[in-house]
């Protein structure tokens, strides 16, 4: 209903004289704070950030420490392989004798690396393509969008597996590199985001403030970066948050299937290593999966909350 929306809007109009400015971002933050679910998501992500930053403090043992064998974790001097959760190892140990909990903690950094790294690449490609297609239109739009559609119809996951397999075969030296996985995920995940950003640019481009700016004599560069980009930034933030979750999930799946980077310590890799012993030691597979789920859920809740908080349709 327009009239009550208009009224809600008048609420902010008559602030006391001299009151300090309230930017759209400040308003979005206020809205976000009222959304309990989003704050829960933010909390989960925050806990994971702390975990990644202070992993040595949060973990019980040093990384790659074989319980009962390595000098740093002697315990009773007996190899603790596939031991069920107990006092010394709350989430059990895996086949090698690593403490599952500590290894999960050390895997957090890798999860962020994958999520943020792949998303950075994805959003870079998506923003460039989305802005260019939406702003310049015409043949440029036609070309870029057809390209995007080609990428969209390719079965992304299969392609990813094939690509990883081929690179592992062709360049065995790279196989240990988690960056390759990050690059491949990032390079194939952008089409959806590019289309959404283009759509938003098309919408914002029609607003009169763009025409007003052009009419003043502003250059294309100025219109793109001073007006269009800040006005689609909220969509980019939401897409990026959700993309982080999607990238982590993809890496976990790829690794679990055995196509990941073998030398890396990711949750997916941990699940893969324990998968053969799931009958004797289910904890080695289950708990990394639980943490993947928790982190993905955290980012998804935050992303959905951000979407509600930043949605311009709620503004006017």
């Amino acid at each position, binding site marked *: 209903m327009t009239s009550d929306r208009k009224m809600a809007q008048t609420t902010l109009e008559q602030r006391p004289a001299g009151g300090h400015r309230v930017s759209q971002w400040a308003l979005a933050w206020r809205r976000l704070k009222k959304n309990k679910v989003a704050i829960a998501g933010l909390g989960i992500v925050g806990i994971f950030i702390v975990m990644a930053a202070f992993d040595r403090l949060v973990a019980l043992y040093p990384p790659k420490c074989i319980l009962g064998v390595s000098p740093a974790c002697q315990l009773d001097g007996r190899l603790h392989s596939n031991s069920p959760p107990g006092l010394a190892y709350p989430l059990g140990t895996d086949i090698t004798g690593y403490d599952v909990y500590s290894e999960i903690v050390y895997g957090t950094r890798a999860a962020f690396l994958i999520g943020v790294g792949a998303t950075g690449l994805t959003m870079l490609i998506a923003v460039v393509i989305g802005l260019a297609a939406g702003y310049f239109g015409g043949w440029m739009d036609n070309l870029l969008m057809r390209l995007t559609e080609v990428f969209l119809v390719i079965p992304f996951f299969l392609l990813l597996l094939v690509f990883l397999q081929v690179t592992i075969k062709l360049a065995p030296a790279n196989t240990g590199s988690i960056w390759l996985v990050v690059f491949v995920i990032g390079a194939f995940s952008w089409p959806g985001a590019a289309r959404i950003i283009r759509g938003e640019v098309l919408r914002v481009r029609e607003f*009169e403030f763009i025409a*007003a700016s052009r009419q*003043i004599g502003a250059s294309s560069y100025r219109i793109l970066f001073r007006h269009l980009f800040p006005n689609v930034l909220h969509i980019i933030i939401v897409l990026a948050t959700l993309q982080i979750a999607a990238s982590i999930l993809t890496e976990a799946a790829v690794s679990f299937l055995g196509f990941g980077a073998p030398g890396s310590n990711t949750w997916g890799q941990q699940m893969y290593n324990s998968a053969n012993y799931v009958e004797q030691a289910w904890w080695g597979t289950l708990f990394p999966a639980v943490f993947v789920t928790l982190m993905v859920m955290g980012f998804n809740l935050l992303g959905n909350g951000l979407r509600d908080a930043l949605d311009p349709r709620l503004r006017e």
Partner: protein
Amino acid sequence: MTLTPETVLEVKELTKHFPVYERGVILRRKLGDVHAVDEVSFGIRKNETFGLVGESGCGKTTIAKCVLYLEPPTSGKIFFNGKNITEIFKEGKKDLVLALRRQMQYIFQNPYSSLDPRMTVADIIMEPLEVHKHIPRSQWQNRMYELLRMVGLEDYHAERYPHEFSGGQRQRVCIARALAVDPQFIAADEPVASLDVSVRAQILNLLQELQQKLGITYLYISHDLSTVRHICHRVAVMYLGKIVEIAETDELFENPLHPYTVALLSAIPVPDPRKKTHRIILPGEVPSPVNPPPACRFHPRCPRRIDICSKVEPPLLEVRPGHWLACHNPWPSKRLAS
């Protein structure tokens, strides 16, 4: 219109067609043209408010956009201070274009969408200064506050964002932005249509004050004849992409000659219960501008239609000094009768 020394803007046979395409993936087939504006000519004198009146789809906004080259015209010439500005815009020499943009400004209809929601009012008003750099950077801030006060806002408003303002205040910000470059000419496209009735008068008065103070020439576009009567010196009435009548405001309102003008005037509800005006109700609706009626475009709805109206297009002729008309069978003039 004849070019007198004081003519600031002259539009000659301006035409703007928008092609209509069939939807297609790569190749699109052209289906026809929307005849938004067809061979329209008029001139605006210095210090004058020239009204362009008509119903939605008559092409009045398109004319303003062509004048400021927000839309490139299909054909025709536009002279500003004697210079052919469509040529200058088309060639696109940056310094010449910027010089023109400084002299001609536009005020948009909707103050809710014509301000960037992510910028403060200060940034919005200083943007033209940043683009044109016609005054030194050290003076930008002072100039911005000066403009704010000029349009009746307070200094503390500078730090606010557009969403914190009411419609009328936003329109003031838009006016301040337009004034930032000291323009000679402003095209105002329905500047009060989206405002509350009780604040319309404030904005209309502001526009008039600024004209007296700064000597600005306005092209005032509106569908609302009562505001046009209030603010304009001369008025052109448009119907379906054509100008049908041009006259001084008082002359047009007191002695309308084109049947469409007469009907338009009679259609406005007057806030006086004792005046039960005799309405001329036009039958039907405005035809599609893709296939406008031949000859006189108004003839299918015209109460004074005669045979020739559907065969020959009436030219725009000066029927009385300063009163131009395109009609074969005009409304009986009250002046001539009395």
